[in-house]
């Protein structure tokens, strides 16, 4: 299980190849890539800056992966989250989950992402033509995380 917070971009193909190397028990790999859009809440986004809480962010994501591992059968998981200045089209976050079967891989990948959105301390500041603004947390993200309490 690996968590990396970094300024640099990541190579999805290379990360997935490394995660499943040498483990022939892995039958399913699910991945999610979050990307910067050029539009948010009706305004053009020229760039964004991502801030985090060094130490707590890594700890929070490790706890989320541990929870996923307790709930589904996982061989490995990787989360990479970028910080600093990002532009539209840039990759922000990568979640990769390896399991024996697709059901566990899909579910764990979505769970990790839903919990990361609501529990990992990151904050986005967007640059728009009208100036810079901090992104507001969305109720829909809370709901997405909440449904895992009841969902199998």
């Amino acid at each position, binding site marked *: 299980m690996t968590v990396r917070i970094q300024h640099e971009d990541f190579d999805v193909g290379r990360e997935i190849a490394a995660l499943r190397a040498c483990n022939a028990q892995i039958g399913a790999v699910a991945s999610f890539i979050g990307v910067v859009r050029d539009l948010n809440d009706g305004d053009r986004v020229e760039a964004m800056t991502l801030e985090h*809480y060094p130490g707590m962010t890594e700890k929070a994501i490790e706890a989320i992966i541990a929870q996923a591992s307790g709930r589904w059968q996982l061989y490995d998981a990787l989360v990479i989250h970028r910080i600093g200045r990002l532009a539209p089209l840039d990759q922000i976050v990568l979640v990769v989950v390896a399991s024996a079967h697709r059901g566990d891989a899909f579910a764990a990948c979505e769970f990790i992402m839903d919990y990361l959105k609501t529990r990992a301390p990151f*904050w986005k500041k967007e640059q728009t033509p009208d100036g810079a603004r901090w992104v507001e947390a969305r109720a829909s993200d809370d709901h997405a995380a909440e449904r895992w309490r009841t969902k199998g």
Partner: protein
Amino acid sequence: MATIKILYFAGLREATGTASELLALPASVKNIAGLRTLLRNRGGAWLEALAENRRVRAAVNQDMAGDAQPLQDGDEVAFFPPVTGG
């Protein structure tokens, strides 16, 4: 006297003009709720940034913490807005 470190992130850091501080806790401040009140009583930007309707989150020693969480000497406390990563 207990001394704690307080960190402020994102909009809260900007609003208060403070990234971190060391604070000697008055004996009357026992928990996160008490600390919030103490900081609000600084008035001005502090009162506004930590207003109850701002949904400011707290962490103690890098774990999310509710208002009842007790504070001890050497604790690292953080205040920040709801998170928006991913």
